[in-house]
């Protein structure tokens, strides 16, 4: 499955990109994160939530959407 991953805020300082598309064959969000941790070493140390198709989901959730976003703590207002 081809997945688009978006990065925001301070996470872009680790990834140096805001968006990428990767081919992924795992089942769960957490497996996708393991792949990303291998690619970006310090990502694991950061506080973030995951949105799947624009809804926050737990890391145990099954990957169903092609649209994943890693969101650091919110700072609106």
């Amino acid at each position, binding site marked *: 499955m081809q997945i688009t991953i978006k990065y925001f*805020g*301070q996470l872009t300082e680790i990834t140096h990109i805001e968006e990428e598309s990767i081919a992924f064959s795992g089942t769960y969000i957490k497996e996708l994160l393991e792949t990303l941790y291998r690619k970006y070493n310090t990502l694991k140390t950061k506080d973030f939530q995951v*949105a799947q198709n*624009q809804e926050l989901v737990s890391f145990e959730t099954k990957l169903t959407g092609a649209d994943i976003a890693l969101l650091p703590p*919110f700072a*609106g*207002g």
Partner: protein
Amino acid sequence: MKDKKPKSVFKEGAITSEFIGNSIYKHQTKTSIGAHNIFLGQVRADEIDGKKVSAIEYTAYEDMANQKFHEIRESAFEKFNLTCMHIYHSLGTVKAGEICLFVFVSSPRRKVVFEALEYIVEAIKADVPVFGKEIFEDESHQWKVNS
């Protein structure tokens, strides 16, 4: 189709006092309103380790943020007897002392607007994916986190 497409609440740069004043003016024709309440979020010049914040640079996951703003609107209209509601949030650079969030609620009666405004502002802070980079006077930065 029940829901309208979410309209964007984001504005580039600071929200000006002219814009806010004009919004109030536009409500003079809506004469069922008896009470307005307004929240203005202003960028604070926090001092951290001897360095002062000079501006915040806002970014957002805009599609999701607009959807969340829409949900907050719908839920506030369900919970409270509001005549109208407007939310504007800045993107890009907002200097210390400038306005970055403008929430405006109106109702026939005052008690409703006090409760509704707090509900809406707290929901925005907690649920909307907006990110803030606090820029210090020496151009170094840190990332803001809502407390």
